[in-house]
């Protein structure tokens, strides 16, 4: 067996509503959401024998299994960083493909807007990880402390090298908000913006504005992965994992990969693209729509370049006026609204939306969306998926 192509399928999905205050614990949202994803698939907690979580997620495996009365598990793991959503789906796919588990649930829950946190990750015991150490030692003393600032440093260099004006970044948030406005689950349902609203948006860290950044939300998402064989007996049309990959390159840092020869690209994402296209045996032209990591809007054109949808330095032109990336265009992106236009659940909504597109149940449905690409973790360790309706 050389890869996991066609050896795993997503058979259940669920997402809570996005809100500014869930008034619930993250564990509550997690349990609610996993139950709904299992219902969607036609399964019960008794069937589950694997879990994959985001390392920093408040709902640990014990909290979930003890709350839901899940039986015995043989496979559970964690993924960190922005790369987590696609990587978690990949790890679940690997688990079923190698026969170590049958039904693996991937979940994520955040009270990102209300900050109603129940549990920090197990690692927060005072000592610093090497990543925290880097940020606190060499960046924070100079006031370089926010993710917005960390990203802006890379974007400035990108603008410099390709002669880009920062106003041009406005088309991605505009289109994401258009898509989010169609989605009743979104925080911006029926609240689209015009490009001019972006220009009026407050400058946070020059060259980036408030609307370049994700919208914090309270929400949870879950998906269920099993083998294509078992998927046939379940309720929904299976969504097959045709390509899945992670990548970390030399000198990758989370949003601060400043110490390598060029910082104006996302080389990890480029490698992820090469790997998933090769595994799926398709090219960018075959992809019907994409769900890209839009936690930071300016990373979207950079991802389009790295993934081969346009040439280097042309990503911003590709997004200009939004026609090619909105519903009806040649490559609709982030059709649920994404992190900019639906809500930020650390990229999990992107995977869920890709499944909806293939099922044909998106609120911004792309016609015959049989092949959908998901990218996670722009500006750090990266991962990606190509999902398909046919095995």
């Amino acid at each position, binding site marked *: *067996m050389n*890869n996991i192509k066609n*050896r795993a399928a997503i058979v259940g999905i669920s997402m809570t509503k996005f809100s500014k205050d869930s008034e619930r*614990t993250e564990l509550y949202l997690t349990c609610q959401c996993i139950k709904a994803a299992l219902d969607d698939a036609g399964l019960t907690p*008794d*069937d*589950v*024998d694997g879990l994959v*979580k985001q*390392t920093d997620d408040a709902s*640990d*495996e*014990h*909290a979930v*299994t*003890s709350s839901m*009365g*899940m*039986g*015995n*598990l*043989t*496979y*559970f*793991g*964690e*993924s*960190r960083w922005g790369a987590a959503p696609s990587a978690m789906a990949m790890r679940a*796919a*690997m*688990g079923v493909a*190698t*026969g*170590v588990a*049958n039904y693996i649930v991937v979940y994520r829950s955040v009270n990102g807007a209300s900050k109603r946190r*129940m*549990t*920090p990750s*197990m*690692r927060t*015991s*005072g*000592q*610093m*990880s*090497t*990543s925290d150490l*880097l940020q606190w030692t060499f960046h924070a003393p100079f006031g370089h402390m926010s993710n917005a600032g960390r990203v802006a440093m890379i974007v400035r260099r990108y603008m410099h090298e390709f002669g880009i004006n920062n106003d041009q970044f406005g088309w991605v948030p505009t289109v994401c908000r258009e898509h989010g406005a169609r989605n009743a689950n979104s925080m911006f349902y029926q609240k689209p913006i015009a490009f001019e609203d972006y220009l009026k948006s407050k400058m946070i860290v020059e060259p980036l504005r408030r609307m370049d950044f994700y919208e914090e939300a309270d929400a949870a998402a879950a998906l269920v992965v099993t*083998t294509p064989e078992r998927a046939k007996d379940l309720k929904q049309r299976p969504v097959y994992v045709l390509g899945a990959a*992670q*990548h*970390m*390159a*030399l*000198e990758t*840092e*989370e949003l601060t990969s400043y*110490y390598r020869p060029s910082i104006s690209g996302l080389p990890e994402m480029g490698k992820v693209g090469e*790997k998933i296209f090769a595994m799926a045996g398709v090219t960018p032209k075959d992809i019907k729509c994409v769900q890209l990591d839009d936690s930071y809007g300016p990373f979207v054109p950079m991802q389009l370049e790295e993934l081969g949808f346009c040439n280097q330095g042309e990503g911003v032109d590709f997004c200009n006026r939004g026609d090619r990336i909105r519903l009806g265009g040649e490559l609709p992106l982030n059709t649920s609204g994404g992190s900019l236009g639906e809500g930020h659940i650390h990229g999990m909504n992107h995977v869920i939306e890709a499944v909806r597109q293939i099922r044909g149940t998106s609120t911004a449905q792309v016609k015959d969306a049989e092949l959908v690409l998901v990218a996670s973790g722009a500006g750090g*360790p990266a991962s990606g998926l190509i999902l398909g309706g046919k095995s």
Partner: protein
Amino acid sequence: MYDQYLARRYRTTVRPRVEDYKIKDNVAIVGIGQTEFSKNSGRSECQMACEAIKAAVEDAGLNIEDIDGLVKYAMDYTDEMHIVSALGIPDLNYFGECGWGGGASCATILHAATAIASGAANYVVCYRAMNERSGARYGRAPGVEQIMIAPNDHYGYLMPFGLATPPSWVAMFATRYMYEFGATVEQLGWVSVVCREYACMNPKAMFYGRPITLQDYMESRMIVEPLRLYDCCLDTDGAVAVILTSAERAKALKQRPAYILGATQGIATQGEMMTSYYRPMISILPESWYAGQELWRVTGLSPKDVDVAQLYDAFTPLIPMQLEEYGFCGVGEGVAFCEGGDRIRLGGEIPCNTSGGHLSEAYIHGMNLIAEAVRQIRGTSTAQVEDAEISLVTGGLGVPTSAVLLRR
């Protein structure tokens, strides 16, 4: 109580078919490396991790550039990206984390093995580096100076009552275990004595050259009744790394491969972080039972086939309890099995923790146990079991656990 739970406790979910289990015989551990074990390393955890990985790479006969996967403990403070940047690893195709402290030890092997068996990566390193002795020690209650509110909901039911440390969490199980099975502390002491004997054969062990008698054990300081100092594992500064690759690639490398027969994790119902007191029985380790069942199921072997075992020994009572759960003896018979020590010594039915284990070699969160399991397969242990063919390793207890079965 919890009527339906009782029925469900040992319920096995429908499992994947054995013929679909792609890990068996397809993956091998081909390199092991470690730093010295000390009370004060005098350097960063990141440096020790890099040293251990470099040593493992050399042991396997590989180059750093060959590594394309890293699996870490979620608890490890050295992030993959800094291993990559420090050692100059050009590309990683697979990286991930396993949670639950020592419960992650064999889990890292399982996840690395799935990565290799599914083609995600070719050479995957699992590592653990910790300045546990000179840095923040787990055996102490958390930093109460700053924290006023429990960091999570779970601690709220324990900490205000002073139930604050891992030894006490396990002591609670031990009290009940001794009550239910009529075990005595002297019987537990033999585990400690035998582990120390093994450490005295291992020049790299922290307790090398310092044997103890049962009398010494009985006279050691009481920590949390019923557990004594010699019931508790060491605090260690050190790092251990292992490298996995496919069985096919393994053939071309320097060392005799330790093939993976089976690897699994285990969670059972009603688990809590080291304090699963709300289950029908607390004198057993259902996670370990289930992990054992899965290993025997996928390999078609039984405990009788195992030549040597490295059982996670953060505290002595966990060894007899695991001997029961993995089927080396019946429920409640573990301490009697260990009494006198002969059955777990070299030449006994199942030699256990032949490097000295966490009690006497070093405490690297189970990674040192994996390295010893591999040495037994290679025939290079300082307490070598003659012709060891099948070697069992288990991961941390009281938390979601893990286990690996290796073969020559």
